[in-house]
């Protein structure tokens, strides 16, 4: 289990992390989300003693990272897939890590096979695509068969097959009882993968809860209804105390979005008013919608309007 307590880190006058508290449970994939510049990578670097926080603690089952003997055997870390010497082969990259932590070199062959790089293991890394480097980084992470896995943007550069493979693998690893912490901007992936979420903005904790609770708490469920007699349904909804706004997307059928009522209520209401229904659908916002809603005030770099 990873425990982060009161972690704070400044770079000069800039506060990167501000009194951060959260924990990562074994047996679960925890998504680590935040806008650009929110302090995710700094937090991950502080966890593995690469950056030194001004205050706070990070422990792995009660131990600081620097107290762990041969840490690769306990904690697998992928901070950036490009942290590889371009002139060194993939196999040699893994071998020097294995040797430094008293791991059998046979393990290098196993992780190369696991990530599908056996055939190119002799090639120098400068000939690798970003996706291949990500796979190599994941191989390095798995080298010591660790209990804790920390990954920063592991899906960057992976093709769709690679993304699915990574998702399945991380879920499989969590299923074996390992604690998996994954930082990512690919929210659709995170929605499929993560059971818990830690959301930060400007270095502060915004949310730390299960992904299902986070989405439920920060999104609205609406009912989309389409009908030739949409006016009748809208009036009926409003008389019942619901809220409905008209849609006019299609030429042949008008529609409305209803909030404050269940899909069953809207269906029964239409039936009671003898209105023909062409579509009745529950529309739930995505993790992306929830994330954007929660971090709206904490976006350090905001895009201009496209209109």
């Amino acid at each position, binding site marked *: 289990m990873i425990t982060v307590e009161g972690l704070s880190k400044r770079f000069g006058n800039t506060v990167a992390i501000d009194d951060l508290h959260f924990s990562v449970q074994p047996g679960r994939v925890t998504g680590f989300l935040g806008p650009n510049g929110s302090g995710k990578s700094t937090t991950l670097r502080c966890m593995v003693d690469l950056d030194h926080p001004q205050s706070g603690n990070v422990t792995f089952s009660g131990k600081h990272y620097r107290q762990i003997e041969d840490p*690769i055997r306990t904690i697998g870390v992928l901070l950036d897939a490009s942290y590889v010497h371009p002139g060194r082969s993939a196999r040699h990259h893994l071998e020097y890590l294995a040797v430094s932590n008293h791991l059998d070199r046979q393990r290098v062959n196993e992780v190369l096979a696991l990530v599908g790089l056996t055939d190119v293991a002799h090639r120098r890394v400068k000939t690798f695509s970003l996706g291949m480097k990500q796979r190599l980084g994941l191989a390095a992470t798995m080298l010591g068969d660790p209990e804790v896995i920390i990954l920063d943007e592991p899906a960057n550069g992976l093709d769709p097959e690679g993304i699915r493979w990574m998702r399945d693998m991380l879920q499989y690893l969590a299923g074996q009882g390992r604690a998996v912490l994954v930082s990512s901007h690919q929210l659709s992936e995170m929605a499929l993968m993560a059971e818990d979420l830690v959301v930060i903005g400007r270095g502060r904790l915004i949310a730390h809860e299960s992904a299902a609770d986070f989405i439920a708490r920060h999104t609205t469920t609406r009912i989309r209804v389409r009908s030739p007699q949409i006016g009748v349904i809208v009036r009926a909804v409003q008389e019942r105390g619901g809220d409905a706004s008209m849609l006019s997307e299609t030429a042949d059928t008008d529609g409305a979005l209803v909030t404050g009522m269940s899909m069953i209520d809207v269906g029964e209401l239409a039936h009671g008013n003898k209105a023909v229904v062409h579509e009745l659908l529950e529309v739930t916002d995505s993790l992306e919608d929830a994330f954007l809603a929660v971090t709206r005030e904490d976006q350090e770099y905001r895009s201009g309007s496209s209109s």
Partner: protein
Amino acid sequence: MKAIIASEWLKARTVRSHWVLLIIAMMFPLIISTLVGIFNPDPQFVSYREVVSIVASSGAFSLLLLSSLWVINLTSEFTHGTIRVTYAAVPARWKVIVAKAVIGTLVTAVVMSVLFWLNFGLGAALLNSRGATIIVDGWFDHSFKVFVALVTFAIIVSWFGLGLGVLIKNSPVAIVVVLLWPLIIESLIALAFALSGYESAWKWMPYQTAFQEIDGPSGVDSALSRPWGHLYFAAFVIVVGIIGVVVDRRRDA
């Protein structure tokens, strides 16, 4: 610690640019010896002392290249970000630096030893074939003293490169400092002292003091004779190294 040294050895030997630098460092003195052996106009007047002197002088170029190699071996880790992977695998950062120093020491000692005797043998053989008499009484005693001095000096310079590398982190800047230190930087420091009234300060410049004593008493008014000059330089380099390790421990990787 053995595992970390083995890991650093694997790192050092699996990058092609390291081998290229090593080959250049070995080829240059051999070319010089060959040219001297073939084209010296008066080979019959050449003594073993002159051959040893040429070997030591050309070896000084090699040790600067070797020192640059150890600079690159460390600073390229900062350039490519592999230092983060290394420090995540070995959180006791000083162990990584010490392991690099051990590898630097061993490789430098072996390369400079091979280079010295190969170079001496080549030069002596070529000159002998042209009428010189290089192998006479006393050649080995003198050659061996210079050999030990050169190898010791080369090892200290390799530590110096490593110490500067860990402090500076940037490959080009660190290499420039290593190369210019004996040529310009110590002279400028001595000049600054001289302008302040300490005219004998140049005798205490650590690199020059050690370097002048490689080939026996240089005739230059050095403050320290061999081996004290080397110990003095080594002490200076170890202080640079310790500062580097302390700074490296405190800063973010």
